[in-house]
């Protein structure tokens, strides 16, 4: 009997063999996941990492026997605890979902139904699967909410999703996934949408709960440092292929494949910069500025900051700290209430409407979401050509020639001139946004979270491009971001914001060296590191302090 028990223990809970998944792109079926093998033991945490399009989410969903609309399992087998999910009748697979295998989505804000209270959504799965009654589910929810450290666990469930914060919602979703004590939980980028300080809370909650209940988990992310904190084993995917798989610590210490090495290297990107120290004039000078949206309520208070020519100033802080508001003040979208802004020595009028065209030209902006910032119905030529005719009155061939030149500057082929934004990838679209900003020949570009929506490797390319353009053209950047890795890579000076005020500012080397302001310390220490023990150590340190 003992021997048999041991054999059962050795049998994987989830066993995927030679799995091929295809997606329909409107014309033909193309491969998303190719010949994938994956095993998951009881209580084991498996990390799936790769950039977007690697097929990691598709593979994660396949573990539930589920494919998104427009996808199909072409061949291969998926066995969960002896049951073949590809052959079993649909009803018995549906019975598994939300009872023995559950799912935590990337954006809890989008994945909770806005029309129902949290508790009702929590209870729906267990009640519908006939596992517990509604009252039992409510008790279970309160218990899990407490374990996950949600404030006011007795009552928070009776709120609607829009009434709790993003980090709390993400934890409520983890609780919902744990409602039926599942054997496997699939975490699909559960912390990607959160800022670093909130990410830690959620990571800790996830780590504690899965350890305590000995749940097996598949943790999908593009962030190696995050997965390093949780996973026992890591699989690296790219374009639907398995690049490398192995024990988490071994892989981080000694990656075998070049691609894994590059993923690891992104974190320590380009610390050294070519600097041109001449011409240190101040291009943008913000003096004692406050502003807000409602009467009498200031979102940002008493902002003082200076951007020098050929320099990059990074404004960092968590969401809600007022960093984007600063960008809106500089661009004039939100007129400042007090204080003064001067732009290369001249006083800048606070609202957009009363600035002249020359002033508009010299101050350009690049946005977080290139998808939204580009008109999908215009060709690249029109998009980049517009500032050329607006600011410089160029026409016809002159425009075409200059657009081609600009495309060259952002390292895109000239042939893109006749394409529509939809035909480009996310990174390419962001390059188009950069080219559009460059077309105006600006002195200062405000970059609002320009790399947040991109994968790490693509983001690295964008940052290198921005750096090169600064060296060649002498542009200054005001760089708004919550990502400290980006800051380390590109900034000359750092401004740390918290609750609408600047809490610390100075040269990068000074800010990144202790002693720090308390909040800077919190931000810095919250950036996940590759060290698998980082999270545990950090918590010990914080507990001791």
């Amino acid at each position, binding site marked *: 009997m003992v021997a048999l028990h041991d054999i059962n223990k050795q049998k994987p809970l989830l066993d995927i063999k030679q799995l091929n998944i295809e997606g329909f792109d409107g014309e033909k079926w193309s491969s998303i996941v190719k010949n994938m093998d994956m095993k998951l033991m009881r209580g084991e945490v498996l990390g799936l990492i790769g950039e977007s399009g690697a097929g990691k989410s598709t593979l994660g*969903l396949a573990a*539930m026997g*589920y494919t*998104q*609309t427009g996808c199909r399992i072409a061949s291969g087998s998926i066995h969960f605890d002896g049951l073949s999910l590809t052959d079993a009748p649909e009803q018995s697979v*549906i*019975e*598994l*979902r*939300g*009872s023995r295998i*559950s*799912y935590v*989505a990337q*954006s809890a804000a*989008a*994945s*909770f*139904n*806005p*029309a*129902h209270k949290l508790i009702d959504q929590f209870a*729906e*799965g267990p009640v*519908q*699967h006939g596992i517990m009654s509604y009252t039992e589910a409510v008790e279970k929810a309160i218990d899990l909410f407490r374990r996950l450290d949600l404030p006011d666990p007795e009552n928070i469930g009776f*709120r*609607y999703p*829009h*009434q709790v914060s993003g980090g709390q919602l993400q934890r409520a979703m983890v609780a*919902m996934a744990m409602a039926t004590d599942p054997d496997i939980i699939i975490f699909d980028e559960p912390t990607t949408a959160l800022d670093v300080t909130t990410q830690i809370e959620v990571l800790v909650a996830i780590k504690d709960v899965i350890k305590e209940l000995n749940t097996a988990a598949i943790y999908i992310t593009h962030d190696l440092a995050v997965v390093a904190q949780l996973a026992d084993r890591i699989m690296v995917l790219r374009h639907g292929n398995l690049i490398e798989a192995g024990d988490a610590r071994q892989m981080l210490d000694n990656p075998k494949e070049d691609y894994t090495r590059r993923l690891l290297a992104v974190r320590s990107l380009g610390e050294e910069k070519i600097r041109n120290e001449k011409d240190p004039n101040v291009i943008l000078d913000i003096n004692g500025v406050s502003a807000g949206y409602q009467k009498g309520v200031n979102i940002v208070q008493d902002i003082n900051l200076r951007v020098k020519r050929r320099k990059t100033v990074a404004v960092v802080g968590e969401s809600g700290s007022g960093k984007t508001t600063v960008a809106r003040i500089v661009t004039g979208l939100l007129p400042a209430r007090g204080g003064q802004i001067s732009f290369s020595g001249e006083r800048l009028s606070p609202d957009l409407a009363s600035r002249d065209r020359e002033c508009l030209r010299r101050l350009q902006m690049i946005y977080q979401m290139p998808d939204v910032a580009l008109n999908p119905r215009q060709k690249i030529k029109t998009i980049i050509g517009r500032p050329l005719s607006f600011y410089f009155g160029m026409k016809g061939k002159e425009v075409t020639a200059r657009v081609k030149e600009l495309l060259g500057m952002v390292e895109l082929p000239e042939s893109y001139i006749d394409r529509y934004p939809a035909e480009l990838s996310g990174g390419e679209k962001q390059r188009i946004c950069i080219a559009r900003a460059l077309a105006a020949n600006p002195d200062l570009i405000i970059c609002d979270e320009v790399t947040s929506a991109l994968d790490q490797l693509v983001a690295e390319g964008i940052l290198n491009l921005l750096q090169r353009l600064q060296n060649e053209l002498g542009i200054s950047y005001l760089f708004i971001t919550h990502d400290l890795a980006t800051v380390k890579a590109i900034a000359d000076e750092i401004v740390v914001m918290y609750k609408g005020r600047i809490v610390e500012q100075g040269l990068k080397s000074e800010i990144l060296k202790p002693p720090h302001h308390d909040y800077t310390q919190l931000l810095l220490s919250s950036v996940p590191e590759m060290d698998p023990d980082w999270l545990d150590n950090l918590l010990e340190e914080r507990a001791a302090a």
Partner: protein
Amino acid sequence: MNKLAAMITKRIVFGVLTLFAISLLIFVGVEALPGDLAEAILGQNATPETIQAFRTELKLDLPAHERYFAWINAFVHGDLGKSLANGRPIAEVIGWRFANSLLLAGATALFAIPLAIILGLLAAIYRDSWFDKCISMVTLSAISLPEFFVAYILIALLSVQIFLFPSISNINDQMSVFQKMHAIFLPCLTLAFVVVGHMMRMTRAAIINVLSSPFIEMAKLKGIGRKRIIVKHALPNALSPIINVVVLNLAYLVVGVVVVEVVFVYPGLGQLLVDAVSKRDLPVVQASGLIFAATYVFLNLTADVLSMLSNPKLRNPR
């Protein structure tokens, strides 16, 4: 709750303003009708003196803006004026006709709205099945056919071929509810053909639109069945467009059914309006126009308020 109350109050104020704007439009429109009212009514035998006397009596000799304010003032105080055709108070002429119109609309709505929503839900549940395709085709044809055509086909089938229902929907106060329903069955059915298609297709589209939301995928991954997903997860989030299309069709049922009323010789407000226009009974035209407009504005206001109430973010502020 304050925000919601403020929004609703704002809507009501806008509704009242809209009504005033419409009253002005109606007045200007009637003013712009060609020909002289007095001459048209008194006919060729009129002497200049009788025409002058007639004008003075109707206050047609006053400037337009004074007549407008006099009309609006009387209207607000419940006095709709007198019919030119027979000298009876307009309230009396319009009252029972309007009640008839409401009866026809109400009877149609009572079975058309639930039918449309249930069909829409079923079409969404069994999306792309033969059931969905059939129902889409039938409703599309029903929308595309002109209503008088549908009306005559129904008369030919259910009144001429087999005599089940009368082709002339005459109703009066002596009839019992059942008799009335029997009398107006064919116009109801005709109207239902027109409105069910719209509402059903909008319900289906609104639900399918919500079905691509991440929270629907989440529900699927929680192992929830398809029917429950549609009814519990998709429907509450698709209410706003559905409410709007339902109310729009209700408004159509009250104010847009002139053609059907004429075909079935039904004594509704629409037919009265047509008669009044041909008889140049301008006070009646103005009054019915304004009643139609008020109904329309009121129903749209209801739709706006219901849509707001269907939004959990507005119902439960942070």
